[in-house]
Every structure is written in structure tokens, then in C-alpha cells.
């Protein structure tokens, strides 16, 4: 660029200054540290983004592993245990070793609260990739499009007595695509000669600017909110960060409670065939989830609001400063499955018959209370069931006498259960208390 100034030197100096200012402005205007070239809001389009609950896993909180040894027992229990160990292990070394064994381990006893659960959810957010619209000025897809903002919530319907209690953690996962480390350098040289009658000379000016960017530098905002029946997650992406991807959320939940009483048979002593017998029945009350119905699937309401950044032009470059942007907003509402019935119902087992209609064995206490004879797990139920089967086959067992354990009486069909009923009457078997597809195990020899 060369200018010849032959008349007014002052005017020439002003022109030179103006050129410098204009060049500075031009250079500043060409910066790449911009969000877009132009932006406008177009309107609503609810089909650009989709969201689903990719997976959900319901786990019971893991119990601690607190261990108790002899010295944690009460004074009377310590005395009794030491006496027993002294009789069983006369050898000093064995006796000393027995004193240091672990006798109780927390978590191995019956769980008394089954109403709390940890729920891990993986949400998948995807965008519509309609390549047939590429190059279409009126279309809504280009390579540079991205989800710029989203807010989604998951709400538990009121018919389920289920509540969020805690937010364990949440994490967002994105694929990392590093495009390049880019350096931009722009310069403008000015060279002006002054050739006037009184003044002769020249000036040289240079304006340069350099920028360095890492494309796809990740910057992300992630906010979470939790209330009794609702969790909400909000995300905002920045340059080069598309919010398409997976979001994992871990929450703690609690059901309203419903009481159940489970039976713990105490196996002690030796029976006629060498197998242990049941000397007493103990009971413990546990809390199970309160759900009046047991739906196959428990669903929640998923809602998503998003802002979609559609690039009208400038999509050929990875940087966004040259994009002409059209913004769309959208909303999605759907119901998604959270967990199935089998993940909620307690796996208790009882003994009874389901030949014609479902009939189960109950327990009657000395006080006249009557409740279901149910066990915390299948193994315990089978062990008690085996004992019943053996006892009913005992030759000296009075056939018509009721089955009594300690001061408790077993009840079947609203009458005391007799050994005769077990030995030759109706078939009874181990059955799940709540429907879970298990057909049960029949009493040997039963019909």
C-alpha cells in the first residue's frame, strides 16, 4: 500500500493516523475468539434431539463388614463361650486360637430394612443426523451442529411410594476428539512516503496479532438438583463441545415401608438320624417396600428441554467464530422404565400348597397371634422343610398330633397342622411368598 502526499503535510499525517486506526479495527474484527458470526433464534423443533434411559440398575446398599469376636460379646455370653471352647479344645494352642476367632459378622444376619436402594441410571442423549439435509439452506442439519444446552429431569409418579434421598455422584461422559492445536497470526504492514515541498520523509507501521487455540478445549457446566420425587440435571456446552453422549447418575432411593415378620428356626441337638432338629422359632420384623400393586415395570417421567445450535454457514471450519448460527429450542417428555418387579420384591419363601388355590402354613403364638411362616431365603426355608419331611416320617411320631415347636403351633387351612397331613395328606412345598416365577420344591413323597 503506497500513498503519495504532495500537498498538505498535516492532512497527510491525519490520513496516516486514520489508516492505522482502520487497520487496527480490521485486525481486531478478524479475531477467532468469538462464539459466532451471527446468531438468531428460529423457533421450536422437538425432533432434533432424542433422549432415553439407556440403562438403570437397582442395587441394595452393601452392608458393612463389621466383625465381632469373643471380646465383643456380653459378659455372660463370653463366660459361656469360654466354657464351651475349654471343653472342645483341651489343647492350649487350639484353645488360644479359638478365643481369637470371629464369631459374628455384620451383614450375615437377616437384613431388617429392605426399603432402601441405590439406583444407577445411564441417560443417552442423541441428535438427529439427517445427512439428506446437508447443503440445504432451509434444513436443520450440518456437520457443525451441536446441542448447546440441555436440562432434563426424572420424576417419580405419585402412585409409587418411592423417594429420592441422596445424590451419590454424577458424571458426564463424552468422547474426546482433539482436532488440532491451531495458531492464528495476522499482520498488516503500512508504508507511507511523505513527499511535500517542505517535508520529505516516510513512515512504516506494522500491526500484528497472534492467537493460539486448542480446538475442542473442553469447558462444561453441570448442575444437579434433587428433591423428594425429582432429580434434575442441567448442562451447558461451550465451543466444540456437543452435549450428545451419556450421562450417568447415581442416586439413593427409599420406599415407604411395609412390615413383614420372618421366621428364624433354631437348629440344635441331634435327631434320630443324626440330623439337627428345630428346637425353637425366633422371629424378626423386617421392612419391605410398600407398593400396593406389584407392576411388572416401575416407570418414571423423563423430561428434556434443549437448545440446538444449527450452523447455517461456516460449518466447513472447525472453529466456530465464522459460523452463522440459527438456534432452535425443543422439549421431549416420555415415560421410561426404571426397574422391574423382580428387583423390588423380597425373596422370601414359605411352605404351602398351590394345587387348587394357594394355601400356606402359618404360625400361631401362645398369645393367639397368627402370621405367615416365611423365611428370609430359600436355603433357610429348605432346611426347615427338610426337617418337617424327616419328622413326619419318624415312625413313633403320633400322626394326629399337631406340629408344635416350643410354644408355637403351625397352622394350615385355619387348623393346626398335623404330622399326618405332612406324612400322607396334601402336598406341600417351598414356594416364594411373592410371585417370582419359581415353581417351588415339593415335599419328597408328596402327591
Amino acid at each position, binding site marked *: 500500500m503506497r500513498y503519495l502526499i504532495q500537498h498538505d503535510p498535516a492532512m497527510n499525517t491525519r490520513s496516516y493516523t486514520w489508516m492505522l486506526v482502520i487497520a487496527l479495527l480490521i485486525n481486531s474484527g478478524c479475531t477467532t475468539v468469538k462464539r459466532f458470526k451471527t446468531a438468531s433464534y428460529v423457533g421450536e423443533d422437538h425432533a432434533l434431539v432424542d433422549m432415553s434411559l439407556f440403562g438403570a440398575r437397582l442395587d441394595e446398599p452393601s452392608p458393612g463388614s463389621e466383625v465381632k469376636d469373643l471380646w465383643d460379646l456380653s459378659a455372660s455370653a463370653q463366660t459361656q463361650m469360654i466354657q464351651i471352647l475349654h471343653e472342645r479344645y483341651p489343647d492350649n494352642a487350639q484353645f488360644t486360637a479359638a478365643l481369637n476367632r470371629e464369631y459374628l459378622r455384620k451383614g450375615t444376619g437377616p437384613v431388617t430394612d429392605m426399603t432402601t436402594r441405590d439406583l444407577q441410571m445411564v441417560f443417552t442423549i442423541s441428535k438427529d443426523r439427517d445427512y439428506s439435509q446437508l447443503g440445504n439452506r432451509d434444513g436443520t442439519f450440518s456437520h457443525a451442529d451441536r446441542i448447546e444446552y440441555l436440562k432434563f429431569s426424572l420424576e417419580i409418579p405419585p402412585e409409587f*411410594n418411592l423417594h429420592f434421598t441422596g445424590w451419590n455422584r454424577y458424571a458426564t461422559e463424552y468422547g474426546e476428539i482433539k482436532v488440532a492445536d491451531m495458531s492464528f497470526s495476522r499482520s498488516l504492514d503500512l508504508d507511507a512516503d511523505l513527499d511535500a515541498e517542505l517535508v520529505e520523509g516516510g513512515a512504516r507501521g506494522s500491526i500484528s496479532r497472534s492467537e493460539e487455540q486448542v480446538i475442542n478445549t473442553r469447558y462444561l457446566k453441570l448442575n444437579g438438583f434433587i428433591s423428594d420425587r425429582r432429580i434434575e440435571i442441567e448442562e451447558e456446552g461451550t465451543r466444540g463441545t456437543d452435549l450428545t453422549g451419556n450421562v450417568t447418575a447415581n442416586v439413593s432411593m427409599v420406599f*415407604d*415401608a*411395609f*412390615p*413383614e*415378620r420372618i421366621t428364624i428356626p433354631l437348629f440344635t441337638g441331634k435327631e434320630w438320624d443324626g440330623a439337627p432338629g428345630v428346637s425353637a422359632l425366633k422371629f424378626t*420384623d423386617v*421392612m*419391605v*417396600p*410398600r*407398593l*400396593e*400393586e*406389584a407392576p411388572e415395570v416401575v416407570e418414571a417421567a423423563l423430561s428434556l428441554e434443549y437448545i440446538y445450535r444449527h450452523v447455517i454457514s461456516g460449518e466447513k471450519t472447525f472453529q466456530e467464530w465464522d459460523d452463522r448460527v440459527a438456534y432452535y429450542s425443543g422439549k421431549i417428555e416420555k415415560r421410561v422404565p426404571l426397574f422391574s*418387579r423382580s428387583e*423390588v*420384591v423380597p425373596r422370601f419363601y414359605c411352605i404351602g400348597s398351590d394345587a387348587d388355590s394357594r394355601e400356606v402354613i*402359618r404360625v400361631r403364638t401362645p398369645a393367639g*397371634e*397368627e*402370621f*405367615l411362616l416365611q423365611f428370609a431365603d430359600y436355603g433357610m426355608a429348605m432346611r426347615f422343610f427338610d426337617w418337617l419331611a424327616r419328622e413326619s416320617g419318624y415312625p413313633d411320631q403320633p400322626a394326629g398330633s399337631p406340629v408344635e415347636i416350643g410354644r408355637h403351633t403351625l*397352622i394350615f*387351612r*385355619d387348623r393346626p397342622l398335623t404330622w399326618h397331613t405332612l406324612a400322607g395328606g396334601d402336598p406341600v412345598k417351598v414356594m416364594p*411368598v*411373592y*410371585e417370582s416365577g419359581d415353581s417351588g420344591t415339593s415335599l419328597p413323597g408328596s402327591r
Partner: protein
Amino acid sequence: MYYLTVQNLGKERCIHRGEEDIYSDGMVFSCIPDLDFPGGECVKEIMIVCSEVPDPPMKAKVYRY
């Protein structure tokens, strides 16, 4: 004979029975008993309170047989 039942996880359980229909909203019963229940005609639905877990109240049915 009147039978008072509650339902949980799809399973109906009789928790009380009596000669007379004494059942009304707000009454407190233990929800642990499980009595023999022959079915019958449902005469009304009420809201009871479980003595083991008082809150929230629970829907219950009264049957006559």
C-alpha cells in the same frame, strides 16, 4: 364374618377379622398378622394406619363372608 385386608406388592393379606363390621377410616391395626381369608364380598374400602409404620395411611378393604 368380616375380614379386613391390606395389599402389598400385589399380595392381599387379612390382618383382622370379627363377627361385626367395626372397621372405619383412621383405625389402627397391626399389619403383621396373616389370617386365613376365604374371600367373599368386598363391602367397603377404608384408610387405616399400620401400627408398625403409621405414615402414610394405608388403603384397606373389608370383606363379608
